[in-house]
């Protein structure tokens, strides 16, 4: 009898609760407490201590302001943020990648940091990275932390196959063919789930510009890029699953000893050590193959302030606090990321002490690349459509479904159409 009754009661309670919720007054508007909601991307639980103590520190310095921290998984940030923006409950500060920030900026959803931060503060950031957060002449984000793409090689494979380490991207197919032939392993796993293909286009001499029709793609450079990818595919340097899987797969394959090299951020060393401890001995860390040729890419993580915030000034104040050189150094000591302010990039913490410490070497190469590096892919309007078309035609060329010439033409004309349709 009792459990039955319980079910009936549960029902009525639910309805009552619903009515009660609906009737509840919205929280008092004129509260003297300012609460700032701060969303980060997958920093918990690793950085729990750091973030919470930073918040405590900030709250102590700024009485009257409380910071509510919400951590969202990497893969889910966009959906969750979008839903909250649509419902008008956006956080005051969000930690985003530049592509997603620029998409939000495209729809004018983000505050311009230059209206709130002092020029002195702005000057502390890496200028190239700072400038990459600009769309239509307006800024939309503050760089928080950075990473650079370095090369991690499986020495054993290269030695077995008697192959040299590549000196540029375009050498990979040749080396890959050799490795495939001699020991039947794959060499490299280019990822198509981010902007890598387009960054490589720039690395291979192309140019992407915000101001030109079709963003200034050139036939010759696209053709060169497609040749690079087709060669990779045809030479057996890359597994077929590059067509459907992303960077995570590259890491998994490398960890399984099935892949000769990995182009990735230095933080992956840690992952590799956890999943395949015995592999660490064979690992050789080098700069990105193209690092010597001039341009290298910087990957940035932003902090942005949505326009829905009621406290933009306080929000940017907190942003400045979190991305200050001091806080960035503290953070870099906790996790393998690199700071975005010039002063902290010079910090002695980044000195190499032990040439045999792979972590330290990786950090040193990254820092070197970042100091003279650039954000190769500028924010673009309709970025996701552009990316989809870019990758689709690249894949077609790789699979031989289109000739390289046709794929080049189609890619460029698609980009022209998309850039023209604009907003």
């Amino acid at each position: 009898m009792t459990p039955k009754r319980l079910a009936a009661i549960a029902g009525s309670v639910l309805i009552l609760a619903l009515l009660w919720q609906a009737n509840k007054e919205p929280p008092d508007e004129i509260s003297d407490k300012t609460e700032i909601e701060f969303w980060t991307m997958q920093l918990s639980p690793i950085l729990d201590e750091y973030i919470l103590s930073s918040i405590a520190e900030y709250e102590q310095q700024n009485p009257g302001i409380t910071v509510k921290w919400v951590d969202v998984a990497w893969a889910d940030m966009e959906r969750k943020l979008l839903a909250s923006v649509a419902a008008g409950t956006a956080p005051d500060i969000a930690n985003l990648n530049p592509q997603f920030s620029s998409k939000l900026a495209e729809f004018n959803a983000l505050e311009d940091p230059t209206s709130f931060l002092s020029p002195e503060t702005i000057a502390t950031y890496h200028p190239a990275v700072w400038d990459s957060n600009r769309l239509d002449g307006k800024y939309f984000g503050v760089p928080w932390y950075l990473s650079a793409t370095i090369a991690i090689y499986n020495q054993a494979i290269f030695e077995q196959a008697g192959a040299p380490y590549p000196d540029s991207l375009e050498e990979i197919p040749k080396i890959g063919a050799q490795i495939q032939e001699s020991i039947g392993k794959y060499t490299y796993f280019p990822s198509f789930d981010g902007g890598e293909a387009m960054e490589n286009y720039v690395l291979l001499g192309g140019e992407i510009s915000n101001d030109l029709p079709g963003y200034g793609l050139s036939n010759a450079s696209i053709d060169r890029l497609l040749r690079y990818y087709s060669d990779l595919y045809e030479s057996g340097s890359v597994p077929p699953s590059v067509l459907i899987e992303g960077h995570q797969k590259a890491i998994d394959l490398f960890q399984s000893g099935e892949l000769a090299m990995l182009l990735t951020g230095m933080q992956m060393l840690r992952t590799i050590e956890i999943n395949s401890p015995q592999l660490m001995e064979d690992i050789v860390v080098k700069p990105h193959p193209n690092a010597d040729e001039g341009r290298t890419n910087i990957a940035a993580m932003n902090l942005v302030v949505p326009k829905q915030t009621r406290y933009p000034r306080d929000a940017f104040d907190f942003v400045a606090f979190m991305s200050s050189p001091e806080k960035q150094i503290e953070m870099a000591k906790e996790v393998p990321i690199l700071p975005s302010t010039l002063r902290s990039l010079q910090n002695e913490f980044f000195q190499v002490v032990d040439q045999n410490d792979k972590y330290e070497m990786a950090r040193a190469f990254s820092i070197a690349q970042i100091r003279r590096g650039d954000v190769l892919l500028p924010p673009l309007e309709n970025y996701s459509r552009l990316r989809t078309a870019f990758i689709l035609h690249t894949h077609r060329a790789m699979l031989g479904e289109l000739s390289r010439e046709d794929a080049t033409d189609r890619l460029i004309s698609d980009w022209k159409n998309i850039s023209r349709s604009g907003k």
Partner: protein
Amino acid sequence: MFPKFAPYAFLTPAMLIIGIFVLLPMIIALLISFSQYNMIEEAHFVGFDQYRRLIQDPFFWNALLNSLLYLVVVVPILSLAPIFLAVLVNRKLRGISVFRAIYYLPVVTSLVVTGLMWKWVYEENGVLNFILERLGLLNEPVAWLATPASSLFAVMVVTIWSGMGFYMVIYLAGLQSIPKALYETAELQGVSRFRQTIFITIPMLRPYIALVAVISSIAAMKVFEEVFIMTNGGPLSQTETLVFFVYQNAFIEFDMGYASAAGIALFAITFLFSIFNLMLLRDTTPAR
């Protein structure tokens, strides 16, 4: 004669919850399909523009075609194969409940985990290639998911695998409504078990088959997670289904109006198909 308010009183809680939390969002989605809406700025009305765009969009047609292919392949298999599974476990044997649980296991497993597991099965270095090569059925490994010719079918297999147990349970219930005298007669006439299944069980289960067809076609038209986790629509859009198209446009392109129009199109197709199936279902209800 009966108090006229009674039916409505019974329906009220359900209608409130479903009305507010399902129907209302549906209606909003319908309205959004007639507008341009990026979820950040205000929506504005554009009439049938989004639908016109759909008709001209080769990616939409590709997705529609893939979904229909899905329907055509998956629904018949999911409507018939679980019958054999149900017949197999509809016995009083030692340990049979363990087998039932094993067959049902995929149903209770989240599609995220399922997708991860099957990616591992399908890999070039994966178990499937390993087994097929050992059996001498394959000479060199196939990247099942990454090869345009096989990818959609590989995804279908996962949908079938994870749905079998669910429909098996429905058919188990159906099996229990078949008079056992039919089997006894057949047994006396020396009809083999297999033939009994074909000529007694399946015809007797016809209404259940129709029910499963309705449910599985709704599910087939809504396939998303498998694709999202295993292939992300690739290679070359070969595995992009309608819901994947909806997702892509809504959450990657922020083109909610367009995504909603595609969703409404999907809805219309599935709804008509279901009504058709339900009519079929009603006609085949046996006199019991």
